C-alpha cells in the first residue's frame, strides 16, 4: 500500500492506494523538498562524451558529482501534462530514480547513507536537448512543468537494493530505452555521501541518481511512461505550452 496526493476543489488530500488499483486522475507530486540532480552518473552517459571530456572546455573527466537543481516551478505530478515550449519541437525524457531523503544528512558516510533515505520515486528530468554541458542548463532544464515526479514515494523497505533496478521508458506504448541502476558510476549510497560532504540534504529533498545515455525524445501529443522496478510507473502527456495550465492539467 502506498499513499498518493490528489487535489480537488483547491485542496490536497492524501489517499491510500491498494496494489492493483488503477489511477486515472492527475496526482500532485508526492514531494515538496529541493530536487538535486546528478549529471553523467551513468557509465554509458560519460562514455557517450568520449574524448571530448579531455578537451576544451571540459579539460578532464568530472571529479565531484556534477549537480544541478530542478526548481519548484518545474515540479508536476503523475498524469499532469508537460508543456512543450514554442521554440522546441522535441524534448528529452530523462528517466531517473529519485531518492527521497528521510532525515537531515550532513557529511554522511557511505556505509550509513541508506539509513538517511525514506523512500524512492520516479522522476522525468525533462530537458530541451543541449550538447554543451559547460554552463548550467537553466534555460534547458528549469522550465515550468519540466520535472514530473511520482506517482508516489515507495517506502525504502520495499526496495532491497536501489542499485539494481531496471528503468524503462515507453513512448506511446513503445519501449524506447532500457537500463539498470547497476550501471551508475556512483551508487545511491556513494552519491549521498559525496553530495552531503559539502551540502546538507533535508527531509523531503530528492536526489536524482542520473539519467541513462541516449534519453529518448518526445513531442506534442506523445505519452511518456517511465517504469522503475518495484516502484511503479510515471506517465505524462506532452502538450503545447499554449494549451497548458499551471498545475500541469492539459
Amino acid at each position: 500500500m502506498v499513499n498518493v496526493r490528489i487535489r480537488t476543489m483547491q485542496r490536497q488530500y492524501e489517499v491510500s492506494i491498494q496494489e492493483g488499483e488503477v489511477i486515472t486522475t492527475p496526482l500532485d507530486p508526492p514531494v515538496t523538498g529541493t530536487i538535486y540532480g546528478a549529471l553523467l552518473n551513468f557509465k554509458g552517459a560519460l562514455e557517450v562524451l568520449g574524448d571530448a571530456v579531455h578537451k576544451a572546455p571540459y579539460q578532464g573527466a568530472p571529479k565531484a558529482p556534477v549537480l544541478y537543481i530542478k526548481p519548484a516551478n518545474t515540479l508536476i505530478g503523475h498524469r499532469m501534462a508537460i508543456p512543450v515550449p514554442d521554440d522546441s519541437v522535441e524534448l528529452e525524457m530523462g528517466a531517473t530514480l529519485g531518492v527521497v531523503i528521510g532525515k537531515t544528512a550532513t557529511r554522511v558516510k557511505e556505509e550509513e547513507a541508506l539509513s538517511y533515505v525514506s523512500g524512492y520515486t520516479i522522476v522525468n528530468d525533462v530537458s530541451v536537448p543541449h550538447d554543451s554541458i559547460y554552463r548550467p542548463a537553466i534555460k534547458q532544464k528549469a522550465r515550468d512543468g519540466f520535472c514530473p515526479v511520482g506517482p508516489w514515494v515507495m517506502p525504502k523497505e520495499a526496495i532491497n537494493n536501489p542499485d539494481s533496478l531496471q528503468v524503462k521508458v515507453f513512448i506511446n506504448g513503445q519501449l524506447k530505452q532500457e537500463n539498470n541502476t547497476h550501471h551508475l558510476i556512483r551508487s545511491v549510497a556513494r552519491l549521498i555521501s559525496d553530495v552531503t560532504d559539502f551540502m546538507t540534504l533535508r527531509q523531503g529533498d530528492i536526489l536524482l541518481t542520473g539519467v541513462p545515455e541516449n534519453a529518448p525524445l518526445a513531442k506534442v501529443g506523445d505519452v511518456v511512461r517511465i517504469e522503475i522496478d518495484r516502484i511503479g510507473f510515471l506517465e505524462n502527456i506532452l502538450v503545447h505550452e499554449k494549451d497548458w495550465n499551471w498545475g500541469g492539467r492539459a
Partner: protein
Amino acid sequence: MKKARVAYSGAIYDAVEKEGMLQLHDGRLVQEQDVVWLSPVEPRTVFALGLNYADHAKELAFNAPEEPLVFLKGPNTFIGHRAETRRPSDAEYMHYECELAVVIGRPARNVARENAYEYVSGYTIANDYAIRDYLENYYRPNLKVKNRDTCTPIGPWLVDTEDIEDPMNLKLRTYVNGKLTQEGTTRDMIFDIPALIEYLSSFMTLNEGDIILTGTPEGLVDTAIGDEVVTEIEGIGRLVNTIAGDNIFLRTDNEKAVIDR
C-alpha cells in the same frame, strides 16, 4: 521599510527596523545584537549571476557573456547576518562576492523589461562566496563551488522597493577586517535588473519570494580563517560575516578534526 527575520528568546519573529533597534511582530523592541539574524526571505528558488559586471569578467579572464550566465542555489547554502562561513582546510582560494539581491513579489511570466520593477518586492545583500579550488568545467560554476553549506550569507534587511529610488545606481563595497577591498556600482551590470527579470520570465515562472543575486564587480581577494567580511550596499545595509575553520565545523567528526590540526 526595512524588514528582518530573527530568532529571539526561543522563537522566530518577523521584525522591522525602528529607531536603530528591531521591533518584533509582537511589539517588543530589542537590540540588534540580542537576536540571531536569519535570511530575511526564506530561500526557495534562488538564481545567481556569473560574470555580470564587465570589470569582474575581465578580472577572471572571460569575455562578457552574450546571454546571462545563470545558476541556481539550494536553501542549504544560506545563512543570516553575523554568522560564520566555513573555510575548509584544503581550500587555497576562497573569495567573497558582494551582490545586490532582488526579491520577487508576485508570479512573473513573460514580463517585458518596462514592467519588470512591478514584480520586485524589495532588495537585500548577498555574499556569494566561491571556493575556486573546487571549480570544474561541467555546469560551471558547479555546486561544490557555489552551493556549499554556510557559503551564502544574506541580509540583514529586506528593504522595500519604494525605499530605493534607483537600484541601478547603488555603490557596493566589501571590507575585510575593516579594509576596503572591493568597490563598484550596480550601474556597471551587464544585464540590469529589468533585463534579468525579462530573460528569466521568458522561459519560466518566477514566484513570490524567489531571489535573484545579480553578480559582483571586481576586487576579489582570498579570505582567511578569522576574517570579518562586511559586504555593504548603499541604502540597503551592511552584511557582516566571519570566516571559520574546520576546527569549529568538524567538531562532531573527532577523528577528522584531529587530523586537520
